[in-house]
């Protein structure tokens, strides 16, 4: 399969200095990339750059096999949303917006697609509940359903399992794997390194610049991987909140 997008020497600068420095890699359609690294290592910034929200100071993100309107994005939650009057259906439906151009109203197809994602993420019973009254995990699932509504090509996830209990988290990983097997390309930022490495096929380890990029197997054997995964990486058991089969 062809290259879906490429980061070409991407650097992003904030007031205090580089948040992302000279990062290059290519992702092919069908890849499942996990971005790992410490707090403040530039993961969110890189993801935002890929999503087109942050303009790189140097280099560029080349969207070759995917259009901007075909990207689904799950942000790290902002406090503003937490008390917004909207129900789950309204939130999920808004994911279809990028697709229907100038059309002022949602079509039946949009609604069907929203319902499908709602069922997939098991939030049917809270479909008309108010978003602000949901638990953090339920909100997260609503936002994921919205992101899935927006794309069947490229999904960008910023810590999708933060705030989810281990059971729901592993359910989420299962759903993502299933979607990935059907051809959806996934880029996921995660602190749950164990699961990330377990489910993804590629790993990008950030430390402002690129510390490692490559296949999951190579990562486990690499210095960077060993350090982050701890001594356990050498053996069978990986750290993290989820149980592995």
């Amino acid at each position, binding site marked *: 399969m062809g290259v879906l997008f490429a980061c070409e020497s991407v650097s992003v600068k904030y*007031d205090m200095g580089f948040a992302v420095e000279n990062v290059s890699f290519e992702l092919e359609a069908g890849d499942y990339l996990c971005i790992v690294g410490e707090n403040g290592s530039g993961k969110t910034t890189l993801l*935002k750059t890929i*999503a*087109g*929200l942050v303009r790189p100071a140097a280099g560029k993100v080349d969207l070759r096999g995917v*259009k*901007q*309107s*075909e*990207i*689904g*994005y799950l*942000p790290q939650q*902002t406090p*503003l*949303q937490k008390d*917004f*009057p*909207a*129900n789950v259906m*309204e*939130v999920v*439906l*808004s*994911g279809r*917006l*990028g697709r229907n151009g100038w059309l*002022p*109203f*949602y079509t039946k197809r949009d609604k069907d697609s929203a319902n499908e994602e709602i069922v997939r993420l098991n939030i049917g019973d809270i479909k*008309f*509940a*108010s978003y*602000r*009254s949901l638990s953090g995990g339920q909100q997260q699932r609503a*936002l994921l359903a*919205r*992101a899935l509504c*927006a*794309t069947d090509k490229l999904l*960008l996830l910023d810590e999708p399992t933060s705030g989810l209990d281990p059971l729901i988290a592993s359910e989420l990983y299962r759903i993502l794997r299933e979607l990935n097997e059907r051809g959806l390309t996934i880029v996921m930022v995660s602190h749950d390194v164990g699961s990330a490495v377990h489910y993804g096929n590629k790993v990008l380890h950030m430390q402002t610049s690129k510390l490692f990029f490559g296949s999951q197997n190579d990562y486990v054997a690499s210095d960077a991987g060993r350090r982050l995964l701890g001594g356990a990486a050498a053996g069978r058991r990986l750290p993290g909140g989820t149980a592995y089969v």
Partner: protein
Amino acid sequence: MFELLGELFSYPFVIRALVVGIMVALCASLLGVSLVLKRYSMIGDGLSHVGFGTLAIAMSLNLAPLEVSIPLVLLAAFLLLRISENSRIKGDAAIALISSSSLAIGVVVIAMTVGMNADVCNYMFGSILAMKKSDVYLSVAVSIAVLVLFVFFYNKIFAVTFDENFAKAAGTRTGVYNMLIAFLTALIIVVGMRIMGAMLISSLIIFPALTAMRVFNSFRRVVICAAFLSVICFFIGIVFSFALDTPAGASVVLVNLAAFVLFFALGRIRKLA
């Protein structure tokens, strides 16, 4: 009561104030939901003060008020939005500077030319006598345009209000919609300013949204409820203003305040139940 209403409707100036005011109240409440949720209420406030400044200049130069104010306030909307989007400058401090400066310019210009008279008080706190016949056409046309655009872009406005980053990542041109919201707000403020008063027009934007949010939980319901509330409160406020001879804007604000208190209590009761 009926006598009062009968008398009310027998005056053409009251009818004019009601027609324009109801349209303005409706549009302001719709835009208000988005502005309040985006934490942009300050922009509405700033624009109304800029509006006062431009009105004062128009008055002292003997120019038509709406024709002078509309382009200048649109320009201000563009600037204020830019300022509040740019995180490097302290956004609300900059807006406060612009709005108090405009107010000061307006007051000084008036003091130097026509002098501080009853007209000035009307500009600041509203008057049902404000609407001339020619103003009515322009005001109604502007309001209808705002209404149509809001309905047409409703879904986009929701998305941009709820989560601008997501909408942008999915290819929506969020900058355009932010500007649209700011421009529509500017238009409504200029048109509504003379009935409601420059000091009070922004409450027409903020109150209905806040009130509706006390009780309703979906965006659509909040929008619809805010629209109804705004129109009803405006009507009651004008009746009060006419009956008690109080400034129109201030009366409408007080009715809005009463509605807010009522809904606040309702919301609390619902939470307990």
